[in-house]
């Protein structure tokens, strides 16, 4: 039994997963890019030339400097500055961090709710199923945006406007998590329904195992691979949702910008020549989402070609 960890690693190296990863150039490139971005985001405080949250470092007179290579650039600001005079490179690093945090956080929440409700609905069936799926239906008839408005209002009402900046990130995680759990719940429910019919579940019942044990120890692990695929795509979606919310002014405050709010704050300048304020974060956002989506595609192909909904 002591060899289990070693053999698990060996097993992984022999697995189809690893095999197809090694052979898929797109997957390798996407993964490397994603890894790079995640690392850059995680270590943003170390990598960034300046702390964009420290207002004392900002000088308005440095505003709208172009990236290095264009005339008028200042080498202290490699990617230029935004309208406040903030170093864009640092801001983007921190913004990527915020976006990734929201993306991952929201998906973790989604997955938690989705898996829990999907399992309960699928496994218990009957009334529980009917009620949960009705809730999911109702929930689906709100878009993320509407949930954002509603939840945002509730948060503001309960925390007041001033606290709001500090909790904005949690709120966004909450909003996107709550708005999109039905997606995962439905997938989980569908795979639970399929798994439930399989005989290993009956075998477990015949052994006298309790419902909870069967649900979480036997069925759940077998529904994970579609969840994994969906979750990957959902991270991309969550990042886009956050960007959209921020674009509409319902997201991160501009003092702690995510990529979306960076794009929004630069949006006013795009046509007046300072295109970099929007375009560089925009590009980072698109690349980030793109590599996640590409990885999701690849995962989908490897794990289960039947999953497509994203």
């Amino acid at each position: 039994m002591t060899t289990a960890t070693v053999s698990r690693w060996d097993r992984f190296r022999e697995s189809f997963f690893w095999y197809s990863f090694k052979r898929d150039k797109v997957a390798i490139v996407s993964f490397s890019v994603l890894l790079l971005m995640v690392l850059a985001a995680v270590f943003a405080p170390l990598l960034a030339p300046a702390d964009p949250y420290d207002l004392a470092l900002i000088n308005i007179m440095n505003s709208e400097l172009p990236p290095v290579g264009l005339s008028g650039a200042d080498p202290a600001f490699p990617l230029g500055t935004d309208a406040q005079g903030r170093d864009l490179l640092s801001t983007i690093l921190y913004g990527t961090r915020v976006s990734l945090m929201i993306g991952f956080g929201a998906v973790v929440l989604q997955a938690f709710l989705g898996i829990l409700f999907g399992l309960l609905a699928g496994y218990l069936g009957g009334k529980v199923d009917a009620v949960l799926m009705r809730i999911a239906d109702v929930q689906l008839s709100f878009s993320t945006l509407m949930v954002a408005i509603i939840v945002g209002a509730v948060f503001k009402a309960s925390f007041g406007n001033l606290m709001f900046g500090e909790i904005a990130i949690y709120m966004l995680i909450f909003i996107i998590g709550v708005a999109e759990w039905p997606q995962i719940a439905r997938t989980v429910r569908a795979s639970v329904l399929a798994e439930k019919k399989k005989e290993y579940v009956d075998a477990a019942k015949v052994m006298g195992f309790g419902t909870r044990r069967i649900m979480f120890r036997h069925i759940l692990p077998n529904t994970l691979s579609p969840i994994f695929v969906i979750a990957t795509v959902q991270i991309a979606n969550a990042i886009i949702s956050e960007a959209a919310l921020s674009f509409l002014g319902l997201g991160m405050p501009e003092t702690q910008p995510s990529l979306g709010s960076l794009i929004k704050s630069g949006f006013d300048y795009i046509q007046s020549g300072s295109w970099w304020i929007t375009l560089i974060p925009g590009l980072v956002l698109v690349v980030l989402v793109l590599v996640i989506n590409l990885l999701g595609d690849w995962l989908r192909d490897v794990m289960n070609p039947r999953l497509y909904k994203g």
Partner: protein
Amino acid sequence: MTSPLVSIRGLEKRFDLSGSLLEQITFEGGRFRRKQEAVHAINGVDLEVHKGEALCVVGESGCGKSTVARTVMGLLSPSAGEIHYDGQRIDNLERKDSLPYRRKMQMIFQNPYASLNPRMTIQQTLEEPIRFHHPDWSPVQVRDKIHEVMHSVGIDPDWGSRFGHEFSGGQRQRIAIARALAVDPEFIVADEPISALDVSIQAQVLNLLMDAQESRGLTYLFITHDLAVVEHFGTRVAVMYLGRVCELADTKTLFSAPRHPYTQALLSAIPKLEDDRPNHIRLKGEVPTPVNLPSGCVFHGRCPYANERCRQEVPQLITTDGGTQVACHAVDEGRL
């Protein structure tokens, strides 16, 4: 005869098709009507399984064999009727009270590809039930037990760290049998344990089941649609048709002198190696659906001997001279 180990009395099972009250309401011919539909999977089955025997249940697809098996195992609750184990009624027990019977009664399933949890190693698969039922056992005891069952079903203990999908169907079925044996059951329900396997593997599994029966004194309720297997394996045979037992007899008696017209047709339909051409009793029509059960004898629509009584009256199991129990008016009346 000793008292039966398992007895099934007046078992009925319906599956409701019509859903909630709202969904039952239909609009027909200008007025609303409440329409309830159900699958009558079992309609009054009485069976006794004696200690040490292998009672085989045969019948066509959909006749309710699996439903009987699953009801006995408590995977389904009966719509009517009772199930007794060793004289104790078990179909209405709470989960906690039923635990001792979970150990005494085990089940082997048809599909070896689905009956092992794909995310668990063989070791985990075998360990879990032992730990669950014997929480007080030491790890050594557990390990010894696993070794023991692995040996008895002929699987290599080195396989423990591998997953089910790494094995062939026959090997998986062995693992599934090992899992059932791990809790030292007395009674095993086997629902078509070999029908998904190839001929050469079937023989291995059948041999294994027979060995286990011999060495552990097991009692089987063995479900199959392969009559050749029944002839080889069964002590007694129950033939089912549309949720009813239509004939019940010792294996030898049944194969040498089938009484029920359906049994006769079934036996004649088995393709035999000796034959050069198919020569079977031709039945009219096809098996009716268990949703709208025919009145009277469920077989009357396809029976060459059916008469008015068969269309009206449900035949009961009667014991004939040969010891065979048959539910057939024609036999009863001596027409057959």
